Structure formats: structure tokens, C-alpha cells
């Protein structure tokens, strides 16, 4: 499974790590909904650290789409909402 961290690159993460990522992702989404900047940053760091430690960075010239995409470590709730903005309500 390939995960992109925006501004950092792509990581190859073992598929069995997905459950842990989903758990951290749920927590992250809650902070976005709550609009709490402090806990958003904490939750985002936890998720990114999990990707970085469980995964291995792909070479720069690797060319392929990612299965999951994550905002970079210094993203703010506002920026995330802006990205989600027009297309954030895609049903899924």
C-alpha cells in the first residue's frame, strides 16, 4: 500500500498496518469536525509518524499513484478544509 504525505513524498506501508492508520485517521477527522487546531496537529503528527515508521520511503523517481494521500505535517485545519472544500463531499 502506497501512502503519500504531501510535501514529503510516497511511502510503502505494509497492508496490515491499515487498521492502525484508520484508527488514527478517525481521530484526526474528529478534530477537523471539532475545529480544534491543537488536537488536530497532535492527531496529524501521530498519523504521519505512524506512516513514516511503519513504511519505507519510495525513491524519488518512483512513478505511480498512491492508495492514500495525507496532508503534510504543518497543515492547518483551515488548509485541510480548503482542499476538501469543493470536492470534500464526494460520497464514499
Amino acid at each position: 500500500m502506497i501512502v503519500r504525505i504531501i510535501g514529503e513524498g510516497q511511502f510503502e506501508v505494509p497492508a496490515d498496518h491499515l487498521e492502525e492508520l484508520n484508527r488514527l485517521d478517525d481521530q484526526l477527522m474528529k478534530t477537523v469536525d471539532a475545529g480544534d487546531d491543537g488536537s488536530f496537529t497532535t492527531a496529524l503528527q501521530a498519523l504521519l509518524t505512524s506512516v513514516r515508521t511503519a513504511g519505507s520511503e519510495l525513491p524519488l523517481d518512483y512513478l505511480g499513484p498512491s492508495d492514500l494521500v495525507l496532508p503534510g505535517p504543518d497543515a492547518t485545519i483551515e488548509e485541510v478544509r480548503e482542499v476538501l472544500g469543493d470536492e470534500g463531499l464526494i460520497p464514499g
Partner: protein
Amino acid sequence: MGLMKRFSYIFKAKASKQLDKYEDPRETLDYSYEKQLELLQKMRRGVADVATSRKRIELQAQQLQASAAKLEGQAKQAVAQNREDLAREALTRRETIAAQLGDLQVQHDQLKAEETKLIDASQRLQAKVESFRTRKETIKATYTAAEAQTKIGEAVSGISEEMGDVGMAMQRAEDKVASMQARSGALDELMASGALEDYASSGDRLQAELNRGAGSSEVELELARLKGELGGAPAKQISAPASTPSPTPTEDQR
């Protein structure tokens, strides 16, 4: 739905828009490659823009530092002259400048961070564009259209994802530079005609007063010396002949 999936959807949606543009998917390859080269060019200009803004801030900081050092020197001079009022004035101005310097430092660090990110991003994009160029030629040589289409899909999605990533870095840097330019423009105006110019000229007024202070104390010293000479010497000269009429006037004249 979680944030990861939503983000991924957005990136994928952008990629598939690009793929849908042409009937012959091979055209997508060339079109996409053109876009990549354009973006690389744009990135290089972006890096240069950020560097220019950063240098401008560095220049402003140098000017402010020079002003602060001057005011510090003036404050010391004022204290030496026992002019606490002038020292206070100089230190107050230096305080204002110090606050502005602090603000500039924060802006500088932010720009520096954006610059580093842009350079990293352009290196990643450069590597991927190179890889895309090679892949593009291989795909064009592929036998079946169906096979080519799958490979094109992968390559274009991969590169457009990177381009989306880089695009966000660019946008961020542009926003930072724009707000920085507005602020440093305001500071330039301040330095050129506003309050900071006043600091300089009133700083000079401060200097003039300090000089007057220094001048007057020198005058006092000179006066005291002359008084001492005039007050002491005539008395000696008058009393000298009286007490010692002996041959020592040549020594006195030296």
C-alpha cells in the same frame, strides 16, 4: 469517511480529469509531459521569487540593526553625560526597532522554510518528470492499445499526483510571498518617509543634543583649565619676583 480517503479522492479526481481529456490516451502522455515541463519552469521562478523576498527582508533587517546599534551608542553617551531623559528616548526608540526586528525574523524564518520546501519539491518533481519521459517512450512502443492504456493511466496518475502535491507547495509559497511583500512594502514606506525616517532624523536631533552635551562639557573643562592657568600663573608671577628674585625666570617661561 476519514481524512485520508477524502484527500485521496480529490487527488485521484484531478488525475482522471486529465486522462479523460483526450480520446487517444497516447496524446495524454505528450500533453501531460508538456504540463510537467511548464510546472518545473514555474517552480524555478517560484524558488527565485521566494529567495528575492527573503533577501529583501534581510536587507531591511540590516538597516534596522544599524539603527538599533546607533541608538544603543547614543543611550550610552547620554548616560555618560548624566542625561537620563535622552538615554530614555534612545532606548525607547531602540525598543520599537527591536520589536520590528523580531517580526522580520519570524517572517524570514517562514520564507526560508517555504524556500527549502520548494527546492525539495522541485527535486522530487524533476526526478519524476525524468522517469515519466522514459516511461512515455516505452509505453508508446507498447503493442496493444489496452496494455498501453493501463500503463498510461498509472504513469499519468502518478505524475499528476506529484504535480498536485507540488502545486500545493507552490500555492503556499506564493501566498507567503504575497503577504510578505505587502508587509515589507509597508516597512519600506515607513523607512522611506514615515516613522522610521523620523527615527533617523530625530535620532540625529538626539545626536545633536548629545553633541551639544559633550561639547558643553568640553567647554567647561577648557574653561576650568584656563581659569586654573589664569588664576594660578599670575599669582605665581606676582609672588615669584618677591620671594625669589634669583635667576629662574627662564624656567618659568618654559
